[in-house]
């Protein structure tokens, strides 16, 4: 037993780095760890459900203690710990008898915030204390009665989420507003934790977490309390996935939730409430890699129409048994609607099933915004978006100073959408109150899911700003940065605060003597920081990122010549000698000497990242999306750049400068990439073109509005700039330079744009029909494939055509009928399977018979230009046009619809089809030499050994 305990203690130590290595585990921690290693541990069930069964009256809630209290107390279940402790003890005892190993105190709302609703805020501590005390008594007498060791059952101090959330705004008109601050929550929770531990709780259970930021406040409070007591109590954290969205109320996924908590010394994480056991399975699987224990206490199914729960104990136990056999959990119990019978059923079914094996910590850096992100050694390079940086973006600086927040936020959204995996926020500026701005701005962007999705890097040279920033963010982000500039003790104190708030940390290679700028100094400073963090704080190694300073090369000064190679060698050293640590760098500084020549700068960055990346740099503050690929840089250029980076040639700078002059004028697609939003400075027509091609829909409505006064009629905006943009999208798609997702997105933007213009067009009522034309679309009889047809329909509708979509499996007669009803300008026929080709011929024949001269557009995988020319066109009096894809279809239709282009279009079409027919006839005439069937059969393949006589030899 002792051996096992030691073993578990070893594991526990590896698993939980206690915040300060001198806090020993509490006894309850060790016995609970023991028990969890041995088997699945049972938690109790619902408390509220059991209290309801007692049918207590206001008198019971008040007892003598609160006889004259001015506020009604019915419903304040927690106060019963003071006023009706016997009832509470009975419920606890019932659960213990049912087989619960852990009972939860009746203190879910025993905080100042929670009790304020009943005017009992000043009794919050007392309630928490009494709640733990009465549970302790229940455990003690149960153990005594049953001859069990009192350390075999546990009291978990229940800590609910409070009624206020730190991550979400209570005011729809002000997304930055918050009903409660992080530090208020810490105070509330610390008082509750103190009461619970004073009263005899063994465990603290932070449960029903719907906002991870509240949870982090609770964890900080608990850690403060543990530190004061000199004993690390086991902390269980249980989140609540609100509904089928699969997220906590404040937006995090199960995995993001785990990542947020991953660097705290928690005993277990899991889920409770809101869902029944069945619905919990997927979320439990999502956190299977968590290297702590996993708990679950679901509701008794989903609530019925009366708000009650129907699932029977047996049903629930059976589901949980499945999960247990799948090894999904270590600790299991019940939440709303469950009773001692439930726990008895669960304990009955699950006893003997071995618990989930807690996986080893792989030391991957686990980050999160609303979604989780995992960075391992195998991960691709992580791009950190740098546009929300006052020092880095003039525009952003101006927007913040002028308090134009919406536009400032838009920059972040854009960045996130363009692939930044982490977003850097830096508001350092002498002109503003940086700390207040940071709080306000982070609260603002946390309400914007497009940004809040990714992890944040909070960036400031002032630690108080970093501290304030961390307390606004529910995800696990990165703090940038701390260093040894002001000595070891300040470095350690700051790092400890970062650790307590669950963030990863950038350590800049800077010490008391200044910036480390040689290989030896960089290594020395980074190594010193690493050792301090690991040895003094037990800071998780994977949460450490080193910034060994990327400095400018090519300055012409000999002492700068080794900056590039030294950085790269530092990366290598860190990766090889400081286990699990990461390397980050801001790249733009490197090529500062070549400013004015973006093409060369981007090439330098690309080469540098290529080599630094190979050496181990895995995070970069770069516009990586616009860098040329390393392989695509001409070899001559690459060699010159590498000479410079590796300091292989004393004249490298001059040579590269000469070379740079010669390529200065070469067209670089992303010359403007220094500012991702530079395109916004163009004319609105240009912006629309750009946005449509890139699929950025944020500004389209504004841009279109801006054009309205410029054009005589609104419809001209559609015919002009919008159509031009759409045509360009179609062309690029046709050339394979744009992809289908982008085309569909542009089509959606067109819809948005048209919806802005529609009222104006209606108002202009010029009498003319602004529809570009009317098209009937159909997938022919016998065929239901309609992806292509739908794309064409969307593209056309957005190009302002009226599309009459007849759907799929449309018989010929129905098409003819629709012709008479709608009188379209063109008809699109689509089909994927071969028999559809015949059906298209049938339609063409029917048109001829009916005297219809409307052109047919033929599309779909079955169709081909040759088949159209050979088989369909000759059957029709009208043009029959083959379109190979949606983009081409739209372009062809446009040509027919344009009166000035039509004649030429038809002439070209006929010529082309004539040519195809001639080619086809020629090939047909040639008749490829085929072997006769008889001979082919005689030379079939013999896959059966031996002779062919059936004797099986």
């Amino acid at each position: 037993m002792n051996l096992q305990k030691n073993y578990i203690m070893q594991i526990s130590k590896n698993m939980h780095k206690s915040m300060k290595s001198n806090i020993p585990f509490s006894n309850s921690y060790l016995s609970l760890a023991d028990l969890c290693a041995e088997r699945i541990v049972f938690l109790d069930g619902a408390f509220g459900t059991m209290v309801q069964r007692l049918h207590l009256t206001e008198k019971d809630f008040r007892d003598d203690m609160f006889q004259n209290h001015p506020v009604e107390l019915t419903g304040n279940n927690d106060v019963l710990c003071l006023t009706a402790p016997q009832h509470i003890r009975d419920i606890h005892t019932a659960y213990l008898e049912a087989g619960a190993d852990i009972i939860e105190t009746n203190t879910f709302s025993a905080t100042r915030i929670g009790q304020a609703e009943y005017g009992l805020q000043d009794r919050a501590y007392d309630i928490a204390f009494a709640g733990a005390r009465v549970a302790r008594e229940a455990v003690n007498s149960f153990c005594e009665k049953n001859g069990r060791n009192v350390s075999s059952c546990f009291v978990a101090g229940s800590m609910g989420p409070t009624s206020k959330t730190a991550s979400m705004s209570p005011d729809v008109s002000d997304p930055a507003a918050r009903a409660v601050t992080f530090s208020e929550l810490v105070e509330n929770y610390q008082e509750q934790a103190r009461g619970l531990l004073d009263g005899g709780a063994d465990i603290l259970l932070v449960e029903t977490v719907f906002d991870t930021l509240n949870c982090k406040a609770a964890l900080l409070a608990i850690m403060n309390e543990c530190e004061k007591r000199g004993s690390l109590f086991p902390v269980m954290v249980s989140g609540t996935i609100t509904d089928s969205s699969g997220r906590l109320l404040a937006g995090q996924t199960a995995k993001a939730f785990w990542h947020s908590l991953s660097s705290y010394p928690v005993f277990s994480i899991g889920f409770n409430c809101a869902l029944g056991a069945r619905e919990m399975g997927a979320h439990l699987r999502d956190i299977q890699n968590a290297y702590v224990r996993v708990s679950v206490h679901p509701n008794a199914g989903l609530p019925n129409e009366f708000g009650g729960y129907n699932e029977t104990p047996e049903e629930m136990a059976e589901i949980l048994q499945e999960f247990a056999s799948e090894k999904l959990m270590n600790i299991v119990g019940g939440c709303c609607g469950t009773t001692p019978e439930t726990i008895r059923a669960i304990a009955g079914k699950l006893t003997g099933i071995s618990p989930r094996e807690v996986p080893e910590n792989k030391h991957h850096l686990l980050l999160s915004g609303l979604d989780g992100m995992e960075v391992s050694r195998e991960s691709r390079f992580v791009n950190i978006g740098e546009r929300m940086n006052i020092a880095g973006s003039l525009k952003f600086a101006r927007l913040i100073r002028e308090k134009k927040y919406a536009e400032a936020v838009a920059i972040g959204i854009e960045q996130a959408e363009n692939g930044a995996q982490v977003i850097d926020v830096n508001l350092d500026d002498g002109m503003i109150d940086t700390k207040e701005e940071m709080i306000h701005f982070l609260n603002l962007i946390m309400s914007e899911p497009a940004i809040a999705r990714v992890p944040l890097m909070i960036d400031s040279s002032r630690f108080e700003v970093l501290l304030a920033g961390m307390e606004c963010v529910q995800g696990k982000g990165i703090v940038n940065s701390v260093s040894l500039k002001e000595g070891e003790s300040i470095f350690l104190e700051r790092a400890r605060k970062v650790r307590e708030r669950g963030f990863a940390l950038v350590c800049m290679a800077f010490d008391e003597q200044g910036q480390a700028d040689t290989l030896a100094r960089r290594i020395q400073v980074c190594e010193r920081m690493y050792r301090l963090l690991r040895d003094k704080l037990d800071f998780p190694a994977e949460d450490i990122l080193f910034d060994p300073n990327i400095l400018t090369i090519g300055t012409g000064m000999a002492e700068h010549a080794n900056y590039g190679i030294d950085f790269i060698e530092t990366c290598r050293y860190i990766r090889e000698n400081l286990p699990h640590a990461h390397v980050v760098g801001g790249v733009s500084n490197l090529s500062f000497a070549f400013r004015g020549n973006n093409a060369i700068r981007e090439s330098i960055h690309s080469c540098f990242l290529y080599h630094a990346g190979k050496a181990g740099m895995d995070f970069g503050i770069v516009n990586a999306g616009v860098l040329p690929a390393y392989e695509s840089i001409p070899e001559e250029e690459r060699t010159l750049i590498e000479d410079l980076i590796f300091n292989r040639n004393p004249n490298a700078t001059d040579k590269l400068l000469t070379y740079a002059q010669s390529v200065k004028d070469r067209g670089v697609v992303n010359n403007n990439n220094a500012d991702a939003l530079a395109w916004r400075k163009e004319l609105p027509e240009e912006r629309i073109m750009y946005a449509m091609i890139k699929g950025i829909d944020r500004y389209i409505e504004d841009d279109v509005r801006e054009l309205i006064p410029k054009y005589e009629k609104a419809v001209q905006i559609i015919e002009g700039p919008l159509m031009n943009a759409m045509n360009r999208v179609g062309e690029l798609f046709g050339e394979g330079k744009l992809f289908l997702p982008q085309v569909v997105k542009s089509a959606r933007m067109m819809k948005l744009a048209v919806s802005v213009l529609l009222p104006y067009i209606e108002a202009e009522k010029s009498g003319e029909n602004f529809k570009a034309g009317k098209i009937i679309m159909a997938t022919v009889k016998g065929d239901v494939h309609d992806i292509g047809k739908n794309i064409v329909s969307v593209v056309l509708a957005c190009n302002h055509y009226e599309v009459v979509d007849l759907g799929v499996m449309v018989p010929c007669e129905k098409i003819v009928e629709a012709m008479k009803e709608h009188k379209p300008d063109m008809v699109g026929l689509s089909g994927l399977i071969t028999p559809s080709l015949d059906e298209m011929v049938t339609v063409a024949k029917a048109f001829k018979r009916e005297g219809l001269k409307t052109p047919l557009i033929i599309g779909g995988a079955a169709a081909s230009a040759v088949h159209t020319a050979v088989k369909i066109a000759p059957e029709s009096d009208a043009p029959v046009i083959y379109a190979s894809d949606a983009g081409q279809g739209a372009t062809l239709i446009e040509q027919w619809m344009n009166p000035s282009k039509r004649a030429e279009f038809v002439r070209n079409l006929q010529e082309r089809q004539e040519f195809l027919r001639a080619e086809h006839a020629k090939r047909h005439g040639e008749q490829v030499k085929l072997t006769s069937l008889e001979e082919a059969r005689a030379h079939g393949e013999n896959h059966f050994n031996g002779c062919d006589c059936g004797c099986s030899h």
Partner: protein
Amino acid sequence: MIVAALTNWERSPKPREPGVHVFREIPLESLLPFADWNYFYFAWKVPAASEEALRLKEEAEEMFRKIVRERATEARAVIGFFPVQRNGDSLKVYAAEDSRKELAELHFLRQQESAAGTFKSLADYFNPHLEDWIGLFAVSAGLGIGEFQKDLEARGDSYGALLAKTLTDRLTEALSEKMHRDVMRSYWGYLPENAEPFGIRPAPGYPACPDSSELRTIWKLLSPEENIGIRLTENCMMLPLSSTSGYYIAHPQSRYFSIGKIGEDQLRDYAARKGISVEEVKKWLRIF
């Protein structure tokens, strides 16, 4: 041992579980390991190694979770194993429980153009003189996805609808692969222990057997409509669209190939074997 078994293939062994088997509510998660995303990128015309592909995959994964959560689709499969007797380029199919009772005939084509000097036909993978075995299958991971798609469409999310559709196609292909693996190892069980998977699953309408009207015979033998809800239209299209159906061929030397061009002589022969007109054969083979 294995090598010997695979080189001296006399005929496919009798399946462990002959006859028709139906699978419903196959967990969608179990299909993911078999999904080949490259085809997904291909369907979207996105290069597989691009950033766009990464984004697309993320969106697809989100859609997958939504589909699973909302139970928007169900994966089902029907498979069957039957004794056959080769008859030229056709196979006579007999009842699994009574190999004298002829149920149907499957017809294959043969190459007439070849650089190799031999002319392939799927029929060559069956012993011409002994009773042999064939497997048939029809699977779909798209049962119900139509409604879900319409729903998205109605909410103006045509992108999401396309995504759901293309994703379901991938899942169906994954299901097809998974079933094939299970067939090799368990239901047919022809794979010797420790052997690498072998055998093919060509589908009517594809290059080795381009005549999709052969699906009708599979429908006769497996009743996929009654068993799992996949309908065959008059033009031999499967509904839901995300369905696949074909043959399991166990022969270790079996390979996918393309029939290519065939001559008038074979057209006539094939039409006669099937009992339909040459014109109709041309329609199915898209010869014009």
